[in-house]
């Protein structure tokens, strides 16, 4: 008998429609440095560098074309919350067309859906997907000086119009919470397009509408070569709470004050290398200040991340990123409306077994022009177990 002759011929896989219920989950425990500059915080609920996260996913397929998906998540061992709950309709088996309705994953950008924790040796998320800016959904500056005063203070921002109590600001894209709405996706071997209409906005996803506005977002991905995928994303949506309407000038409405964003991303993979990069710009339209109408304020961020598989089960990763802001004020004395941030993060991931991974990461954050902490070097260790 020849060495491989004991193997029966490979059978053709048979089609199956019996996948009715499936579950999965992940436990991630992270322990790292204190982060007094709030470079990594996206919420008051937990510190991402000192957190235990439990995630439980479930899918039920009551019939061939219908799937109900849910994700329950708890951070810091606090109360569990329903991070996702939606229905996926796939009317034709042979065609890649999906309709998703409910609390759905964001269509925008490269990062916001999975977090790819198991796929990257890094612990921190890109600044675009969590770093808190000073802008708030329930409070507004009265003057440009109010904005300048809050530079680098997104963790505890306050403005004189609307809710004057200090609270956290908005990230460009909130990767922690998903929006509620409907989404359609069409895909072929080389291209995929997704369009979504939701009630919140990129930075402030919501379960229920709070301003009468709608957010639209879209993503188009083309696989230019087998190793290269290029994505283009855009989104526009009202981001302010209608509680602010009484503070607005006549003719202004929170339903017409938008956050608009556009981004280009790429993912290149070959052999042991995986490279991801994204350039993303976001603009927020502000109502007139005391001095009169102002142009929308802009943030532009770029990040590039590389992963190298040194050995089976051993990865090295590096991300470089920068988040910058447009100038505000008279041309002679224009200043950025927020404090620019840059970050360098390096990490190592060790996977001794399929469902277990360890990470060690270090990040250097710099924010020279704002915030109480202008620069900080942070370390984190993480263990993750998934099933």
């Amino acid at each position, binding site marked *: 008998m020849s060495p491989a002759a004991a193997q029966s011929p490979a059978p053709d*896989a048979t089609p199956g429609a019996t996948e009715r219920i499936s579950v*999965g989950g992940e436990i991630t425990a992270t322990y790292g440095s204190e982060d007094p500059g709030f470079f990594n915080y996206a919420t008051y609920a937990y510190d991402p560098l000192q957190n235990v996260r439990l995630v439980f996913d479930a899918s039920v397929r009551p019939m061939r074309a219908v799937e109900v998906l849910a994700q329950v998540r708890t951070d810091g061992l606090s109360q569990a919350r329903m991070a996702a709950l939606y229905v996926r309709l796939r009317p034709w088996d042979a065609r890649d067309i999906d309709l998703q309705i409910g609390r759905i994953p964001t269509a925008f950008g490269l990062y916001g859906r999975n977090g790819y924790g198991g796929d990257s040796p890094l612990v921190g998320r890109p600044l675009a997907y969590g770093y808190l800016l000073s802008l708030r959904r329930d409070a507004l500056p009265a003057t440009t000086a109010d904005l300048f005063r809050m530079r680098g203070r997104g963790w505890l921002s306050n403005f004189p119009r609307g809710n004057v109590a200090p609270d956290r600001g908005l990230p460009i894209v909130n990767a922690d919470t998903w929006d509620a709405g409907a989404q359609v996706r069409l895909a072929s071997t080389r291209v995929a397009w997704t369009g979504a209409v939701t009630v919140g906005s990129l930075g402030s996803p919501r379960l229920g509408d709070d301003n009468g506005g709608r957010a639209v977002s879209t993503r188009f991905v083309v696989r230019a070569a087998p190793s290269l995928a290029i994505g283009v994303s855009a989104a526009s949506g009202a981001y302010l709470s209608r509680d602010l309407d009484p503070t607005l000038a006549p003719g202004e409405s929170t339903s017409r004050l938008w956050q608009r964003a556009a981004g280009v991303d790429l993912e290149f993979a070959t052999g042991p290398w995986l490279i991801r990069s994204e350039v993303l710009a976001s603009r927020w339209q502000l109502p007139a200040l005391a001095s009169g109408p102002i142009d929308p304020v802009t943030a532009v961020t770029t990040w590039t991340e590389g992963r190298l598989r040194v050995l*089976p089960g051993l990865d090295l990763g590096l991300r470089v990123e920068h988040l910058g802001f447009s100038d505000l004020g008279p041309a002679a004395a224009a200043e950025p409306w927020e404090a620019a941030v840059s970050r360098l993060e390096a990490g190592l991931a060790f996977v001794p077994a399929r469902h277990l991974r360890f990470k060690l990461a270090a990040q250097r954050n710099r924010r020279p022009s704002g915030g109480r902490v202008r620069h900080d070097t942070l370390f984190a260790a993480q263990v993750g177990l998934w099933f």
Partner: protein
Amino acid sequence: MVLGPHWRAFAGAIAVTTALVAALPRASTGGQLAGVDTGVIRGRLDIRRLASIPQPRPTVGDLGGRGQRGVPDVRRGLVYLDVAPRSAFDDGEPGRAVMDQRNETFVPRLLAVQTGTTVDFPNSDATFHNVFSLSRARRFDLGRYAAGKSKAVRFDRPGVVRVFCDIHSHMSAFVVVFNHPFFRVTDADGRFRIDNLPPGTYTVVGWYEGEARTQRAVTVTAGVISDLELVVP
């Protein structure tokens, strides 16, 4: 004739061994092979109580579903001799086998090969795949590669090698490597046949999804086909 104490001990050992072998659960005789000095074990590995289709993780974070995928041939088990006859270890010619990647599935899901075999892992999907293993018997990572490309791994140590795709967490498979040729992956009905076995008594193991689930001792006689039913409890 009077036997010395050593001869008496030897005769006693022979008698005990003969009695033990006679007491072993016997495989039934399923036929005769004319003019050969080897035997055959054939039969069926019944895994019906175990076989279930492993479900992929829910794709909660995806913008769409995966569509209809093939279901791996999970009902296939593996039957092998726990200890092979000495002649099994004679040098053989290194072979070649294929584990394809189709519809985000390794096909076949279970591949059994002899040491020295090179296994090709072609990517027959339109998307990128990666093949890796963290198993002690063979630790490797083929990196990410595109549709139409193929990479190969040579398996030189016996053992169970679990194979995964780094990109698609629902993809997994087994390559089981033996240092002898007396093994067989069952067909879809659980049937198997191991040929060219030198006469003797062997322990036959039924294996499924990473574990030896059942075993039985079988005596092989030259020129005889021994039928064996292995039922996983």
